[in-house]
């Protein structure tokens, strides 16, 4: 028998009165249930004749059986009349979309299946119980990472980070909605539950040592603080790290000879280069080799430049313009004519050791040019290396290098329609983990991302978005985009997100797990499944359910 606390979950809240597989079901609410107690995006269970369907509420409607009601209002000040009218003249209904079918027996841990039929007429509808949610989303354990709660329950919603990073994923939402907090949590999930390593391009220095908490003020711990043994911080800006009193393991130095024509190409927009100018580096490289950048920026004076231009047969004017812009790059202190060590190799070594690397930009994070340059440059090289490693191991029938997740903020800068076909990030997204690399893109303007790339982002987590185009972009390609739109456009501005796509069995609205105080950190660093957690309540519940069914000895 269900226990007391479960009782409310066993109250029939409504019945199926209409619907279709493609449109979803319409549920007439019992008059005893106030429509205001049901939130868009919550989960219900429909008990059909043979199947238990789990469905998400995607719309709420007030209905009346008499179109003249509004012209001839009963005396609603009277409680008796109010009570009479409720459910007879007026009724409330929910639109829900069945997604999964639960195992017939509660507590049976066999898999849920896709809903390919619909519940019968008048099938009763209940609120989803903790058990139901766990049957679908799994329990917090060595495979599943707890990411947040459903809207109106304390149940933990979990995601399998291995599924999440199998293909690229994205975290979206307008500024200040909690993208970074979510991404940080997801990275912890990846760190704890997968074999993969990660590289985080930490534009605003929020992932490594500590991050900012805008609401409460002050700082929250970063990944290095919580998992010092598994996280390594690389900084591009040693001074900033020192000023912030932030630890770092490596200072990144990039040699002139590391800069490739493609890196400059990806800066076309940021540096405002003409197409002709952007193509010159390719020509220079063919003639001058790896030293092209050094030679170009060090060639001074009109005459010398013209000479160089005629040597390599490019337009002198365009080349001068290019040089002027590239001189800006030489002011970056992480660029070095002759670096004493190779940062890329150090980065690779860390990744090989299974370390997660946070690359802090320091003050360079405010300079888009630096951000785009470094992210592209490092990622291209990593990608090359990964390709080599994968091909080598393919030849030996190995498993290839450790899967790598590259996390980028401001993703549309790399994946905008005009440039996505050229940038390395576009290539990685399109290759779809061919060389064991996937992306976690974080962005506040998803409409700025190339739609083909978007279609490769298999799992999407979206916080509130204001612009309709952004909402459409995030939902593009999703089978229930119309219904999800109604849910997505009504998120709270903070710490709420709609989670859908490959890694999650059904779309779900979550309140993101809280992050920021010691208790939260404790739960993250030593989760209950690791500490040999006690029996959870739901465990007992399902056992009791089974006992009730089969009798216990």
């Amino acid at each position, binding site marked *: 028998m269900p226990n007391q606390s479960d009782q409310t979950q066993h109250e029939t809240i409504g019945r199926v009165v209409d619907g279709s597989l493609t449109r979803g079901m319409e549920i007439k609410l019992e008059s005893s249930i106030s429509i205001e107690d049901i939130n868009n995006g919550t989960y219900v269970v429909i008990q059909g004749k043979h199947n238990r369907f789990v469905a998400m509420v995607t719309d709420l409607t007030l209905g009346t059986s008499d179109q003249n009601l509004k012209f001839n209002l009963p005396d609603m000040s009277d409680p*008796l009349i109010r009570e009479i009218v409720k*459910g007879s003249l007026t009724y409330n209904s929910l639109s829900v979309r069945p997604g999964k079918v639960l195992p017939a027996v509660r507590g049976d841990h066999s898999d849920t299946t896709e809903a390919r039929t619909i519940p019968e007429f008048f099938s009763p509808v209940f609120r989803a119980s903790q058990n139901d949610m766990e049957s679908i989303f799994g329990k917090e354990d060595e495979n599943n990472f707890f990411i947040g709660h459903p809207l109106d329950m304390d149940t933990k919603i979990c995601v399998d980070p291995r599924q999440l990073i199998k293909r690229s994923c994205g975290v979206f939402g307008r500024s200040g909605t909690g993208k970074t907090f979510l991404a940080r949590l997801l990275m912890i999930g990846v760190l704890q539950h997968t074999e993969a390593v990660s590289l985080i391009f930490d534009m605003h220095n929020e992932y490594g040592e500590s991050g900012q908490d805008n609401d409460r003020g002050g700082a929250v711990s970063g990944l290095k603080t919580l998992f010092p043994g598994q996280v390594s911080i690389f900084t591009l800006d040693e001074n900033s790290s020192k000023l912030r009193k932030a630890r770092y393991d490596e200072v990144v130095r990039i040699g002139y000879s590391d800069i490739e024509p493609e890196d400059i190409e990806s800066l076309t927009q940021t540096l405002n280069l003409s197409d002709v100018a952007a193509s010159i580096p390719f020509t220079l490289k063919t003639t001058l080799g790896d030293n092209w950048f050094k030679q170009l920026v060090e060639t001074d004076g009109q005459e010398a430049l013209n000479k160089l231009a005629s040597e390599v047969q490019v337009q002198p004017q365009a080349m001068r313009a290019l040089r002027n812009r590239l001189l800006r790059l030489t002011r970056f202190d992480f660029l070095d004519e002759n670096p004493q060590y190779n940062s890329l190799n150090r980065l690779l070594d860390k990744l090989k050791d299974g370390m997660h690397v946070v690359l802090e930009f320091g003050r360079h994070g405010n300079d888009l040019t630096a951000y785009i340059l470094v992210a592209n440059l490092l990622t291209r090289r990593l990608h090359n290396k990964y390709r080599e490693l994968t091909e080598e191991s393919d030849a030996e029938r190995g498993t290839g290098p450790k899967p790598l997740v590259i996390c980028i903020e401001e993703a549309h800068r790399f994946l905008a329609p005009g440039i996505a076909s050229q940038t390395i990030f576009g290539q990685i997204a399109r290759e779809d983990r061919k060389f064991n690399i996937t992306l976690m893109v974080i962005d506040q303007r998803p409409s700025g991302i190339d739609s083909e790339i978007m279609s490769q982002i298999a799992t999407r987590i979206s916080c509130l978005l204001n612009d309709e185009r952004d909402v459409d972009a995030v939902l593009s390609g999703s089978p229930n985009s119309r219904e999800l739109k109604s849910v997505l456009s009504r998120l709270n501005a903070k710490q709420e997100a709609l989670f859908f796509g490959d890694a999650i069995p059904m779309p779900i609205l979550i309140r993101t797990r809280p992050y920021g105080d010691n208790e939260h950190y404790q739960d993250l660093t030593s989760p209950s499944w690791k500490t040999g957690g006690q029996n959870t309540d739901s465990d007992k519940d399902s056992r009791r359910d089974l006992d009730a069914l089969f009798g216990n000895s």
Partner: protein
Amino acid sequence: MSNQLGRPIAEVIEANIETFKAQCYELYKPPPLGSLVKAGNMPVYGIVTDIITEGLDPSRPIVARGFSATTEEEIYTQNPQLMELLCTKFRAIAVGYSHDNLLIQGYPYEPPKIHAFVHECLPNELSDLSSSSDFIHLLLQHPEVKDEILTATLISISRQITDREKFLVRAGKTLAIELTGQMSRLNAILRKLKQ
């Protein structure tokens, strides 16, 4: 259902499936409008929808007698024979019958017999009736039942049972569904019910 019967209050003098008419044993002592009565040994239940007082002998017209009296009561004390010449009758619409000691809502298969005793109903029978709204449907369908009689019935029942509120809400909901498309009629009934 309890079978304790008090004294009968009337006797059936006319009956068909839908209605029966009964003559009261005491002048001016009919069951109230809208109340539930039952007639016969295998009782047929009816709701009182009309009350009539008239002369017993249709061939003797009733004439005015109060010219020398100062109060109405005086007329009756001065003419004691009136008590024998007049009688009170009422009409009831069948809403149910007894089967295996249960009150089944709906028309009986047979009308009550002529001369069947009519009793007022006991509270438990009223609450049996009030537990379902089928009788409301019967009353609404009957051409003789005006909305006023219907509301009187509902109010009368509600006053005699324990869960007045619950009964009125359910009755109101039944009406709201039965009277879909007749908002003003429904509103008039609801206004009465809430009093």
